């Protein structure tokens, strides 16, 4: 009796699992967006094609200057446009918010079937977190694919800029983009001066206390100002650990940045109302700042420049 129960239960659970897998894969076929034609074809050759660049999973050879780029990572989108390759882009993912007039699609960048991208006839696909076997599928279709995962340092940002410049034929622009970014960063650091040297901060990614350590690109931005991340002792296994309200009370950070204002509607007021938090130094001194969630998930030049300027503004109003 009991044995047959077990078998029936497992069999129906298995069926349910198969059904739910089928259903979820059926939903992954996103509606194809209307193809966008590149407004202008920049003929100015910045580098010689074919060119071989380093991708997140090995070298990629791009046979000719791409003119139908599908850029499905908000950070890469910022870099591609900063380099002047915007006119070669035929589509960006739904989360690419800068520049505002980029040809946004409904793609998330995590699609699992290469067929989804075919209607746009891309000659270069740029991804940060490819879904399933996307890279292998695109290679079979002979579409060059560049994987640029999350940067953790400014050096990573620079090297991704260089790869994208080579891949899009805009090598000559790298120097200017990096110089402009470095100038903005230097100006922000100069403005803050020694105001925050040694001051501690907590960057909140979600209200259940997920945060980022200094070993992330957003942590690197705070390190520029000589600030100290309260989450570093929790970063042994993950650069994005979960900490606790008790630990925040204990470490009593000087500054708090809430990067969960969009996902979870957190505000400096809601933060101050959490149990015991009204006693935090950051709350009493009004050093709690709500910022767009994307500061913790995008490492493009536009996001970095804007956020570094914001930190400076907060430290030295």
């Amino acid at each position: 009796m009991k044995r047959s129960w077990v078998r029936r239960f497992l069999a129906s659970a298995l069926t349910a699992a198969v059904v739910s897998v089928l259903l979820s894969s059926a939903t992954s076929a996103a509606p194809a967006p209307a193809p966008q034609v590149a407004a202008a074809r920049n003929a100015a050759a910045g580098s010689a094609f074919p060119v071989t660049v380093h991708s997140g999973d090995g070298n990629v050879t791009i046979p000719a200057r791409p003119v139908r780029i599908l850029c499905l990572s908000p950070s890469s989108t910022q870099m591609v446009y900063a380099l002047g390759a915007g006119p070669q882009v035929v589509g960006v993912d739904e989360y690419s918010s800068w520049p505002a007039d980029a040809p946004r699609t409904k793609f998330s960048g995590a699609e699992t079937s290469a067929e989804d991208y075919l209607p746009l006839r891309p000659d270069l696909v740029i991804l940060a977190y490819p879904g399933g076997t996307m890279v292998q599928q695109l290679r079979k279709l002979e579409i060059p694919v560049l994987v640029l995962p999350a940067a953790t340092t400014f050096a990573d940002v620079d090297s991704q800029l260089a790869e994208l410049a080579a891949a899009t034929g805009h090598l000559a622009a790298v120097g200017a983009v990096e110089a402009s970014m470095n100038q903005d960063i230097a100006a922000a650091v100069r403005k803050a001066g020694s105001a925050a040297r040694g001051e501690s901060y907590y960057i909140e990614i979600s209200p259940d206390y997920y945060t980022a350590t200094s070993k992330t690109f957003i942590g690197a931005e705070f390190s520029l100002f000589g600030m100290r991340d309260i989450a570093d002792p929790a970063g042994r296994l993950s650069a994005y650990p979960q900490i606790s309200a008790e630990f925040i009370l204990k470490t009593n950070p000087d500054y708090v940045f809430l990067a969960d204002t969009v996902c979870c509607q957190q505000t400096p007021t809601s933060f101050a109302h959490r149990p015991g938090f009204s006693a935090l130094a950051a709350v009493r001194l009004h050093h709690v700042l709500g910022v767009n969630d994307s500061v913790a998930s995008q490492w493009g030049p536009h996001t970095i420049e804007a956020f570094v300027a914001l930190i400076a503004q907060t430290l030295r109003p």
Partner: protein
Amino acid sequence: MTLTADARTSDGQAPPLDDIDGPSAPALHATRLTAGHVVLGAGFLLAAAIVSILVGPAGLPVGAVLAEVLSRLPLVHLHSGLSATGVVVVWQLRMPRMVLGGLVGAMLAIAGASYQGAFSNPLADPYLLGVASGAGLGAALVVVGAPVIGQIPSDLLPVAAFAGAVLAVAATFALGRSRASERSAASLLLAGVAVAAFFTAVQTFLLQRSSPGQLSTVYSWILGGLSTAGWGQVELVLPYVGTAMVVLLACRRLLDVMSVGDEEATSVGVRAERVRLVVIVAATLGTAAAVSVSGLIGFVGIIVPHTIRLLAGPSYRRILPLSVLFGAGFLILADLLARTILSPAEIPLGVVTAFLGAPFFLVVLRQARRLG
């Protein structure tokens, strides 16, 4: 252990006092809750509660925390010497987190035990009839829908999770009933599997269209945890969990009768279908309230009742009350591990209970096979 009570029961002569107003189960096993069991369970719970209040990343002195807690007792005059922040840590963070963990653990354990009794199925757990998938869908709807509807406070999430859980189990009931003329336990279970698959499919569809931020919010809720526990959540769930526990505890003798089979239970005047309905409604409401604030914490409803069954025998008169005590203590300890193993980093509570629970589940499975 009070051997006299056991001996009387196995005589079949003088039924124990608590059987006088209810039907009596075949007295094959020791069935009565003994003082020894209660002392053991209460001691375990008390020890877990005390340790969890004393330990935390703030590193407060143990003696001062003990003095602080004792100073709130009547007639005790102690000065703990804790700072204002220390007092907040003890009373606003550790205490509600411990109490909420205890309530959720007790509820999940007694609900699991009750489901196992109501369905005569050792693998039944509180999520069997769709609570988890319904609550998950409710949570996903709120998180994904928030930007569409406008600014939604995050405290809508527990309400939506609760509503989703109740809706899923109601759907299971409606479908399980219409499938067969009699509401057999089997058709209910199968309907539960189907409803869970359907709700999970809708949830997956929603999450697939959500942003990474929304995805991680829902995912971290699904993993379960008490990291944002406060007195507000305790007040929110206490009425449901308290009522559910009282109802389930009141059904403990009836579950013993039903363990011999529906027909036999009917022959001694127990309406098995009606008891099953009451048990399921109470266990579902309590579980839905618990998961709405804690997320989906797995395996508590399996581990705790089965451990008790192995140690104290198969009578629900023992299993249900002891599930409350040991379930509460177990989850408090699991949460203690979740926040201390990698301190100051936290591990999702659901990961800890599943890490302990999965190997245990395999043992239970072997046991069930041998019995079958």
